[in-house]
């Protein structure tokens, strides 16, 4: 690995940001690195966010965006709670129902994006709001409540909703697995390269024989299902599901992706970067509780740190473009 190849990694900016954020908290907040490193709060936060952020980032690399994930998390947990909790079907049926809902919403998002010229931001804004309505109405009609209890069998608890050590959620391991599989997919397979090409120039990608429409639908399905999966895991962990907003996760996911070095306009980024970006955001967001800093400042600090991180990415992207360029030989 030479310096120039390191600089070209889209995750480099995020990595530097992460180190900077930790250093800031250690120096100005008096945080003990070991305590912070082992703390569950930011890891749990990062994992629940990260499983959604990776597919959202992949969509952004492909030149699209999906904010309907905000509704898909509560939709996933409500579905599994209603099907397996209220009606008492086996947990597998409830989970499949939640994932099927993800496939349906993802397909709708994908088809609308392919068939119309409406930006996917607006399309998924529509499905976001629509899904919120659907969840609330369905929950009220079917159960009469906005909060449904579910008791998962032990095996499901072990796989999807247990606490390893007293406070670390098992979903952390799922997040790492997601990152490894999707990272391999994006950076090592042909289809991964196609997704980058779509984001770089959709028309040229189509002319090069890339099944742009199918990939778009597939990516939307992936993000909806990932969000539904997070919802399912939360319902199993907390033994209940609520009709909730889930709006926060939209911004958190987008911020993580952008801090992770993905270009908002598509064509550039990495799963590694998104992973580190999510970590950075989680540490910024949760790390403040480990410091002596007055909590009232937290949002200001978060805002500044995010701007710095994004600025860093900009710099690294410029470096990446010029890295490896031959010095001009004076004649």
């Amino acid at each position: 690995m030479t310096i120039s190849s390191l600089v070209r990694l889209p995750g480099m900016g995020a990595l530097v940001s992460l180190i900077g954020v930790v250093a800031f908290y250690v120096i100005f907040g008096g945080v003990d690195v070991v305590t912070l490193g082992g703390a569950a709060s930011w890891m749990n936060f990062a994992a629940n966010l990260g499983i959604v952020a990776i597919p959202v980032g992949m969509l952004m690399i492909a030149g699209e965006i999906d904010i309907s994930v905000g509704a898909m998390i509560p939709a996933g947990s409500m579905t599994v709670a209603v099907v397996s909790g209220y009606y008492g079907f086996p947990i597998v049926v409830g989970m499949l129902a939640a994932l099927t809902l993800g496939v349906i919403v993802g397909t709708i998002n994908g088809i609308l994006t392919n068939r119309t010229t409406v930006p996917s931001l607006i399309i998924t804004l529509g499905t976001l709001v629509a899904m919120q309505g659907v969840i609330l109405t369905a929950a009220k009609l079917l159960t009469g409540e906005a909060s449904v209890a579910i008791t998962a069998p032990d095996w499901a608890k072990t796989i999807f909703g247990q606490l390893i050590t007293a406070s670390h959620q098992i979903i952390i391991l799922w997040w790492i697995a997601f990152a490894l599989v999707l990272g391999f997919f994006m950076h090592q397979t042909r289809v991964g390269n196609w997704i980058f090409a779509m984001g770089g120039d959709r028309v040229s990608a189509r002319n090069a024989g890339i099944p742009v429409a199918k990939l778009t639908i597939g990516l939307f399905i992936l993000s909806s299902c990932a969000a539904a999966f997070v919802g399912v895991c939360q319902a199993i962990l907390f033994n209940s599901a609520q009709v909730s907003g889930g709006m926060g996760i939209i911004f958190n996911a987008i911020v993580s992706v952008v801090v992770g070095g993905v270009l908002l306009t598509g064509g550039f980024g990495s799963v590694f970067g998104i992973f580190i970006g999510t970590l950075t955001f989680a540490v910024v967001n949760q790390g403040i509780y480990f410091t002596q800093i007055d909590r009232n400042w937290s949002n200001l600090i978060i805002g500044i740190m995010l701007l710095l991180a994004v600025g860093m990415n900009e710099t690294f992207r410029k470096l990446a473009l010029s890295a490896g360029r031959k010095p001009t030989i004076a004649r």
Partner: protein
Amino acid sequence: MSTKPPILALRGVNKSFGPIDVLHDISLEVRAGEVLCLLGDNGAGKSTLIKIMSGVHQPSSGVIEMDGAPVTLPTPRAAQESGISTVHQFGGTFPLMSIGRSFFVGVEPTKGFGPFKVYDRKRANAIAVKAVQDMGITRIDDGDRLVGGLSGGERQSLAIARAVHFGARVLILDEPTAALGVKQATHVLRIVNEAKRRGLAVVFITHQVMHAMAVGDHFAVLIRGAVAADFKKGEKTREEITDLMAGGASMANLEAEIEGYMASHDGHPPKVA
């Protein structure tokens, strides 16, 4: 050689969008190892003509022939499969991709088997770099560099090398030198000559007469959607071609007008509003 049918020929092609006639009775042909220069001012119909040759638009009437047989090019993909490759003004369209990856978009080489078939970065980079170097651009030697970091001329060269590598027989170059400096343009012209030497038929679209004369074997001047002149290398001078493009003798008239103005205004040229 002239007994062989031309690789690509247009016979009496017309194109209209609704009531507007854009192209009128265009007949052109280009043979292997020959550069056809399409000259014309903005709005002369050059881009529409390119789009017809590269499968984006269909002619309203008239025939496209390849190797003497009529063909239809329903999509850009179909045109590419018949060996017609179009390189646009800014060459590489994936600026944030590495040279190796963008070279092989859609046809990435892989290694391994089954679900573990992975993109073969080393091989892609090696082939891409070699293809570009074989075309005479030796400055590119690292396939991991991002396309956006290349100069305009290098990007054009990369795009042309890519077309040649994937077996293009007809190369359509849409204003490849328009945005380039003198030195960069020379690089591209050299690559055009190299493609010609390898037996490709090249359609070179430009409004820079100098560049056209440097590589062209055959010239066609397009005015308001019709071929106004069709001649071979050496049959016309640069001034004649420029005048033709500007619509007949208007350039000479303009010069006379300016000279007349200067004579009556103490040698000042006219003010430009």
